[in-house]
């Protein structure tokens, strides 16, 4: 069993899928910021055209993860280079910490977040 970080703000509330962007508007190995009621969300696209969404706040000192360099399924925080897993929001060892994640999917070329 892998430990899933709990998103406190949204725990327990009903969620719906919301379209936030076209896939092509997010650069490959890049990210966009989505402003939402849950705060800023970083939506990433990797080389395989998978999308991931994390709270745009590094568990270290709150750095904007959306501004980091994306590789594999990881993003390197722009402030002090912590590496955060896109799929689980967990910092890569030896650093420890995790950031909230949101469900994301692609449908008909659109990127949707479950919010």
């Amino acid at each position, binding site marked *: 069993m892998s*430990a899933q*970080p*709990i998103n*406190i703000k949204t*725990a*327990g509330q009903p969620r719906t899928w*919301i379209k*936030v*962007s076209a896939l092509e*508007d*997010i*650069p*490959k*190995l*890049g990210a*966009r*910021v*989505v*402003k*939402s*009621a849950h705060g800023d*969300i970083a*939506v990433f696209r*990797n*080389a395989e055209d998978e999308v991931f969404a994390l709270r745009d706040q590094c*568990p270290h*000192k*709150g*750095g*904007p993860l959306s*501004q*980091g*360099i*994306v*590789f*594999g399924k*990881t993003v*390197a925080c*722009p*402030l*002090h*280079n912590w*590496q955060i897993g896109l799929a689980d929001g967990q910092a890569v*060892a*030896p*650093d*420890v*910490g*995790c950031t909230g994640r949101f469900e994301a999917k692609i449908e008909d070329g659109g990127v949707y*977040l479950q*919010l």
Partner: protein
Amino acid sequence: MQKMKLVMVGNGMAGVRTLEELIKISPDLYDITVFGAEPNANYNRILLSPVLAGEMTIKDIMLNDVDWYAQNNIKLHLNKKIVRIDRAGRKVIAEDGTTEEYDRLLLATGSNPFILPVQGKELDGVLTYRDIGDTDAMIAAAAKYKHAVVIGGGLLGLEAANGLKLRGMDVTVVHIMPWLMDRQLDKTASQMLQKSLEAKGLKFLLQKQTSEIVGAPTTEGGMRVKAVRFDDGTEIPADLVCMAVGIRPNDDLARQSGIHCNRGIVVNDTMQTFDPRIYAVGECASHRGIAYGLVAPLFDMAKVCANHLGHMGIGRYQGSVTSTKLKVTGIDLFSAGDFSGGDGTEEIVMHDAVGGVYKRIVIKDEHILGAVLYGDTVDGSWYFQMLREKQNIGEIRDHLMFGPTQVNRGHLGNTGHQGQSNAASMPDTMEVCGCNGVCKGTIVKAIKEKGLFSLDDVRKHTKASSSCGSCTGLVEQILASTVGGAYTPQANLTKPMCGCTEHTHEETRKVIREQHLLTIPQVMHFMEWKTPNGCASCRPALNYYLLSTWPHEAKDDPQSRFINERAHANIQKDGTYSVVPRMFGGVTNSSELRRIADVVDKYQIPTVKVTGGQRIDLLGVKKEDLPRVWADLAMPSGHAYAKALRTVKTCVGSEWCRFGVQDSTQMGIDMEKAFWKMYAPHKVKMAVSGCPRNCAESGIKDIGVIGVDSGWEIYVAGNGGIKTEVAQFLCKVKTSEEVIEYSSAFIQLYREEARYLDRTVHWVARVGLDYVRQRVIDDAENRKALFERLQYALQGEKDPWVERTQGMEKHEFEVLSA
């Protein structure tokens, strides 16, 4: 020879640390058996707080798993509580009857949480906070119930409260004293702390005494807590009560076996109890009348105890002075020593209520007695060191508030910024990791001798920052100042670029050139990269190698650039950006200044600062505003964010100065115009002075030019940064055209041959100045060729700001919404 039998009771932090130390010095002396009452192997109890807060998992906090015991031939009994010691028969007996004989016995039974003797204390939902079981129970309760009451506003209580809050509970902290953490903090710091915690949503009831815990029957037939009642008759709802009102040394077992105890198992300076075969370490031990409740002293005890168990016979434990840090993410708090003030004491206080910083140092007879820091705790370990060592601070008193950098300024070669200064200026004897008692010197030595490069390696080898983790930043700084920057160890010569490849920087550059590779995927494919798309360290390097080797052919990959070079501005710690427009040679005029002023007003830019590079920095610009700010400024990009030409600093020179012999200002402007938009392995800084008085500081620049009667002297590979390096004399030339030609050749050689992130000083240190002279000075043809290649590379290069005001990379600056 028959080995002796060592039995340890209590499988916690102090005990296992003792075994670790013992195995290090005498691996073959004992057959070791361990009894632990908990079901888990050895874990870092301190980090239960981040686990509760959801920032870590149990897996993350394991220190030694069962394999470790097996590897070291330690017999491990988990889940077995020892209930009796038969001292005459020299054996211990567990609850389930398991019996083990011993020659030496080590008691490390820790402590028990104190439970208030009030009615209702045994109800369901009333917990303490000590082990994984308690933590799991709180996590489970948080998922199910709403109201939590934490009794006790000390360190443990606040960490519990913070965790429960982050897990979604409504949390009230009840504290009997007038302010929180009253034993570690003075009132002011405590109130600041309370305010920050209130901002996180915690509630506080101070000066409240709990009189009863009220229960109600549950559907399952039990009785569960429902409310907490106070002695003033009021009550608040509670579905979960966490008692964090203190700990008692767990000396029951020892006491029942007739070992002398007095609020803890009494031990001497070698950690022996009154029965010489029996030792005790950790929170259960009482040393010179003190039972400690923090790991740093326990680890000291462990070392001494291991030494004696290992028959080394040296080392005494003489007690510890402790310091405290609160592990609540986002709150910086430090306290040490006695800060109650009183007769004959003086205080230095700094209080910035708005900035949320408070520092108070209590001094008596020129010695630090205590320190409380809130909001900015970087200097905590420094004060703590002076406190413990009883250092006389008379001479540095004036600077005491401003930290070690200020104090040491006079005699340090290594100034710097980004906190590098802290690490670099720390003396070797200064303690970095309070938990494990590791000094800077030990870390530096391990880094150098063992060739460590990552934080993880340093943790493994020195244990620094492996316990509570609050010194991680400092350890990283030490690592950076030891291996990074100017100090590049020899081992690095053949080191692969990063974990993604076996190839060195040089090999990669060579293959790109010889194979005419043009894209990152091509390089990765051809050179058999081990990862699908590299990492944050190799991708920017590859992007630079491609662009510098094949200008106008290779295409830039913005996603392989660090954010600053992608956004063409400098990211700040709060996620805003800074904008530094170019002022060629540091010369400006009224119309530029007016435009800057207008932009500052229009976009409400909070800070305008004159930089150390003779231009103006606008700090705190929102990313969305950048393209419009640039358009309104209508000034060229200063590339203050890029591995590129930064500034060409100039002095006023012969146009105005009574000493000037050359027009240094114009020379600087010409150089800046020749080289701006030039990317390089690292940033490049230049300066031109009009006479040898050198007001533009040409002696510490990548290229420094100094005007003399008969022409110009060119100096290269200076550096004013992390480690100040004086530039070396390259040559003397007559005309300003020659200055441009020679500097171009030098800088182009650097662009073509240095490793990414080498400053010129690092590169020249590796290849030698003779080599550079040979290629740039002695070989005129090669000099011209280099010069021309640079001209070609820069031809048609656009100003990135102008391009972006015209819509390039638009998505970079636009925010989406949901």
